[in-house]
């Protein structure tokens, strides 16, 4: 099979949930390199559950289906094994780790991912890492003092989201999921973050942008838009679908979906 023939990322008939409660109820999705997909849907439709299941959160259970990354089923892998393959999740609610500086954490993370993906000798020296970090901080218009702050501790909502994108910039994922990265950002911060994401995007990678509103998609143009309801993708289309949702709301789809289901 040629690389072109294998999609970068495929979800097949995914049924998953938490504590025996099924949230994702048969979800299919295919994403190729060079594509940006937006996943929209009302609260409680299962968007964040999907993000956690892809990243490998231990509390979520998969009942059926597969998630293929470069043709390989990743469901049995630990979260770090997935990260080392080039998967990345920008969290909606990043966790604080007191006493651990951004710089120390990121250097360990970047080097463990680099070693796994590019080879043992591809770890960055402290000096190379500092240079790279400074460059990415500048790109996201973040103060250099971020490097010495404790990971997400006392960060404002906007700082947390920027810090997530900073991590993405340093970890250079091939497949990135941005979970509600726009929430908590004011318009200027949103633009900065979106500019950063656009600058990071390249044709050899793919992104899945999870969002409640269309707002973010004014800045990051998706190639495909999917709408999720009750744990399933109920509509897929181009960017125009997002605009339609913005105009009509989710209720329109809900009633249509209810009709189709009955």
């Amino acid at each position, binding site marked *: 099979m040629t690389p072109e023939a294998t999609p970068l990322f495929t979800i097949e008939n995914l049924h998953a949930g938490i504590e025996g409660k099924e949230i994702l109820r048969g979800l299919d999705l295919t994403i190729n390199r060079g594509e940006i997909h937006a996943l929209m849907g009302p609260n409680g439709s299962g968007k964040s559950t999907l993000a956690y299941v892809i990243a490998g959160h231990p509390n979520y259970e998969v009942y059926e289906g597969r998630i293929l990354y470069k043709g390989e089923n990743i469901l049995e892998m630990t*979260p770090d094994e*997935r990260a080392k393959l080039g998967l990345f*999740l920008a969290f909606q609610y990043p966790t604080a*780790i007191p006493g651990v500086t951004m710089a120390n954490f990121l250097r360990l993370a970047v080097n463990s991912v680099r070693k796994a993906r590019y080879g043992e000798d591809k770890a960055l020296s402290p000096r190379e890492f500092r240079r790279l970090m400074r460059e990415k901080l500048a790109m996201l218009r973040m103060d250099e003092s971020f490097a010495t702050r404790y990971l997400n501790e006392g960060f404002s909502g906007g700082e947390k989201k920027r810090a997530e994108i900073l991590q993405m910039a340093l*970890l250079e994922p091939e497949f990135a999921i941005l979970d509600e990265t726009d929430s908590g950002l004011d318009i200027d911060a949103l633009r900065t973050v979106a500019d950063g994401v656009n600058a990071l995007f390249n044709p050899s990678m793919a992104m899945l942008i999870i969002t409640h509103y269309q707002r973010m998609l004014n800045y990051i143009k998706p190639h495909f838009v999917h709408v999720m309801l009750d744990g399933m993708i109920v509509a897929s289309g181009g960017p125009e679908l997002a605009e339609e949702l913005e105009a009509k709301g989710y209720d329109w789809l809900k009633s249509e979906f209810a009709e189709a289901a009955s």
Partner: protein
Amino acid sequence: MATQPELELQRLGTEYKYGFRDPEQYVFKTRKGLDREVVEQISWIKGEPDWMREFRLKALEYFLRRPLPTWGADLSELNFDDIYYYIKPTEKQGRSWDEVPEYIKQTFERLGIPEAERKFLAGVGAQYESEVVYHSLREDLERQGVIFVDMDTAVREYPDLVKQYFGTIVPPNDNKFAALNSAVWSGGSFVYVPEGVRVEIPLQAYFRINAENMGQFERTLIIVEPGGYVHYVEGCTAPIYSTASLHSAVVEIIVKEGARCRYTTIQNWSKNVYNLVTKRAAAYRDATMEWVDGNLGSKVTMKYPAVWLMEPGARGEVLSVAFASDGQHQDAGGKMVHVAPYTSSQIISKSISKGTGRASYRGLVKVHRGAHHVRSNVVCDALLLDEQSRTDTYPYMEIEEEQVSIGHEATVSKVAEEQLFYLQSRGLSEAEAMSMIVNGFIEPITKELPLEYAVELNRLIQLEMEGSVG
């Protein structure tokens, strides 16, 4: 060729009427168990003055009379009859590298400790490399009038100073184990800092030559004259291999007007050891005493560094880290005794429990009547690494004065699944994530350590994690 001390020993061995000498290994030790005769032997071998022999014998009486403390860790398995109370240092030279257990060697390997240092830490041979370091250090110190020798030497060479202060801060009848140490002590450090002298580099027990650094019953006495400063560092983060199962040290410190002393310990005894230590300092007018105390090894540790705040302006601080892994009980904390008004103290304790490990914080803040305008703050945080591990807090407060400000906070937390998942999703293994969280938790204390100790401590915790996770 035998060195001078060895010849000395052989001579002693031959002359000694009880003949406790193993001619093949040049090992010199008292018989197992403890009584008057054994204590007299110890004093005789050391050639001590009468006052010290009397001090030891009196202490033995206290030891025999006092019951085993039952308020803390479980000591019921301690068998005092099955212990050698004095082993001449030559025993160390007699032990070969091959006899050191494999796991200790592996840990040295992984910590990247130099060959010579490894042997020293394992009690094999003498630390020749450090002699060079020590010599230049000693010359500097001598110019400043600083005395830094092992305690046995101090008794011989500075009898007046030793006699004036020895046993004044921790009296022999203070507690059962202080009494034991007073009866059979050997080794430890004696430090004297003259008035106004600041010792710029940390003094490390490690640099002392021909001394029983890691003695079973070491005895340390530090005197800082007015306006002086010294930072003393004891122990090291590498595991200290010991064949003896009981270690009971006493540390006494006098910090005079306007002086400052910091005493840093990282204890990592092997996991068969009962580590029962009495550490106490007296701080006088405007003096500062700081204990930085890390307890990682041992089977049972009971240690509560104390500061007696004797005159206005005195300040005491304890920073304590305890890590209790499977089968360990770390019963640690601090004591602040405010004797005078306008004194202040702080205790910050961080403990981590893993598996069947149990970390207890035990602390005392005592404010005597008349000690008004005292400020004291106690913070103890416990981190549990799994469902099984256990922590307890025993904060004692005895406040006899009303115009005081006393604060106490305690938290218990578990390593959150969300934290582990977050770090793992960035490519860290579960063990790496766990040790990062733990190292972050104790960061307020590690940042106070000399850099090389902080680095080693972090690596050591990482090793502990690798052993347990995944």
